[in-house]
């Protein structure tokens, strides 16, 4: 023990950091901040360290070459002992890190911790969020499978829409004219050197500011932040009711971080690593590319925006979001901190959470995509064929063989791109059905050139039978009147 002390003091005489470290660890924090609400920042740091360590272990085996990356991941999964587990830890660690960073941000926002004098801490945090998202996206590319390949295509298509510089930016991003070896090398460099380097720098600055400016006190309704008096009030608070960070507040941080690490390990153990999916071979087109969980909301949004709004929203939206996030501490740098007196702040968080949640849910189910194999996989429900004549049954066959089912469901099976047709005859008359089939419209392709007149007749005859028993199909009111008058 004496020897350790001696060595320690030998170093400290030269480095002279011991005093600073001791003071930092024992710096007083407001007693009420030793709370379970204040554990997310430290947990994000711990998961970042886990990502760092597992990332280094993966880089030992991973080959960042378009020709070999995919097979080196197979080697990791199946040939290197515990290789799959390290990949799973890294993959799940990434999901947990993004989730914790987002929760940390929401907590900081709702507790008013971004207000004076912690504006810069918040801004650094915004950049840390962007970098974490950047790591998630570049990491997904390094998994170099089909999803990564086509995901790069989607990223390029979005980037190419930026006026003037778009195409140049795409070739900068891809490192050439197409997605190939230099693309992967570029993303590897970003994921392993550039972004982590920036992350470390920003994390250090973020932490220095947290220690220098003190942890945000527990917000009390009615305790107003004013630039003129805040620093003195905070100082008085920690004099009056402060506890040292070590050992006073750190216990909950340690427990929470340990619980998170255990959860990541459990997920990794039970659910395993993410992919890789199919080989990154562009000629295998029987694939439906999906981004990772945290980008599903964007994927869903891209299918719902009207075409004319898509490019402006894609290009202006992120810029506006960034300006709002960075501008926030300057617009609302003073005033009430407690979320109990900030209804707009609470509603904004709820609105964003519900929107992202709903879009993510839709992104998982993709109701807008045709179900490519519905026409050959899902039979027409028996009750829609029972009692039908030859022409109507022929129409049912055409309905399947012309792949109407890929976009329209019957009996809750089939695509959801177009409306379900179980009761279509109640909505559309015979003439309207014929017109819709031949001309399309309302987001449906026109089938006029693909169907012969007799095929159209049979198809419409079948569609006319699709109405609930006891409810008559739609009739053209003028025709009905003529019929009644015997004309």
């Amino acid at each position, binding site marked *: 023990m004496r020897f350790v002390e001696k060595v320690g003091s030998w170093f400290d005489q030269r480095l002279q950091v011991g005093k600073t470290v001791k003071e930092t660890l024992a710096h007083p924090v407001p007693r009420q901040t030793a709370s379970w609400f204040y554990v997310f920042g430290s947990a994000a740091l711990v998961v970042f360290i886990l990502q760092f360590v597992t990332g280094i272990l993966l880089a030992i085996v991973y080959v960042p070459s378009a*020709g070999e990356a995919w097979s080196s991941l197979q080697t990791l999964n199946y040939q290197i002992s515990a290789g799959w587990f390290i990949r799973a830890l890294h993959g799940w660690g990434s999901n947990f890190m993004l989730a914790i960073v987002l929760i940390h941000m929401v907590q900081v926002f709702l507790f008013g911790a971004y207000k004076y004098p912690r504006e810069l801490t918040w801004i650094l945090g915004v950049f840390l969020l962007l970098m974490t998202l950047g790591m998630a996206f570049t990491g997904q590319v390094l998994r170099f499978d089909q999803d990564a390949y086509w995901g790069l295509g989607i990223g390029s298509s979005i980037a190419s829409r930026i006026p003037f510089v778009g195409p140049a930016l795409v070739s900068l991003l891809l490192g050439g004219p197409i997605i190939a070896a230099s693309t992967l090398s570029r993303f590897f460099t970003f994921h392993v050197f550039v972004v982590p380097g920036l992350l470390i720098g920003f994390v250090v600055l973020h932490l220095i500011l947290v220690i220098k400016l003190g942890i945000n006190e527990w917000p009390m309704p009615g305790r107003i932040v004013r630039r003129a008096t805040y620093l003195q009030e905070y100082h008085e608070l920690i004099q009056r009711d402060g506890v040292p960070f070590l050992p006073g507040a750190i216990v909950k941080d340690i427990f929470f971080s340990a619980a998170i690490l255990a959860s990541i390990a459990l997920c990794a153990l039970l659910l395993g690593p993410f992919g890789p999916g199919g080989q990154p071979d562009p000629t295998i087109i029987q694939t439906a590319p999906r981004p990772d969980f945290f980008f599903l909301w964007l994927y869903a949004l891209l299918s719902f925006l009207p075409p004319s709004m898509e490019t402006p929203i894609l290009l202006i939206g992120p810029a506006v979001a960034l300006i709002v996030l960075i501008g926030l501490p300057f617009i609302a740098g003073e005033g009430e901190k407690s979320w109990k007196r900030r209804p707009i702040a609470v509603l904004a968080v709820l609105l964003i959470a519900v929107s992202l949640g709903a879009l993510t849910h839709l992104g998982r189910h993709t109701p807008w995509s045709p179900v490519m194999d519905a026409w050959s996989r899902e039979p027409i429900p028996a009750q829609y064929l029972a009692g039908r004549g030859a022409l109507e049954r022929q129409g049912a066959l055409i309905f399947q063989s012309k792949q109407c089912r890929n976009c329209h469901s019957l009996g809750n099976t089939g695509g959801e791109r177009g409306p379900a047709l179980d009761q279509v005859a109640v909505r559309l008359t015979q003439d309207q059905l014929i017109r819709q089939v031949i001309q399309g419209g309302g987001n449906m*392709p026109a*089938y006029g050139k693909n169907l012969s007149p007799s095929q159209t007749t049979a198809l419409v005859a079948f569609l006319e039978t699709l109405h609930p028993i006891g409810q008559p199909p739609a009739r053209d009111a003028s025709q009905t009147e003529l019929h009644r008058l015997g004309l």
Partner: protein
Amino acid sequence: MATFQQPGADASDGETANIPCWVRRQDGELFQVFAINCAHLGCPVRWFPQSNLFMCPCHGGAYYQDGSRASGPPERGLFEYRYKVEKGALFIRTGQLPTPGAQASLATRSKSCAS
């Protein structure tokens, strides 16, 4: 569907150098060569001969057999490669990942050349 080798590709590109495209023979030596990438966001479109449509699995874009837009989010028809037929072989002009922005700027350029 046809596959071509990206010009200038080397071994490190692996299978990413093999790029597919759709070739439609209209009549004799009259062809249309479509890029595999959807004009919306670049996902691979598939040809369905039964309904004579190209369909995209990502956001549900659909195109007619001549490549023109049928429905869904794409703002335009499929990207087309320029081609020539020499001694019974079909050559196409390629080299770049077709994206909405690149195609747009290409069109602008050729327009300014013509004027």
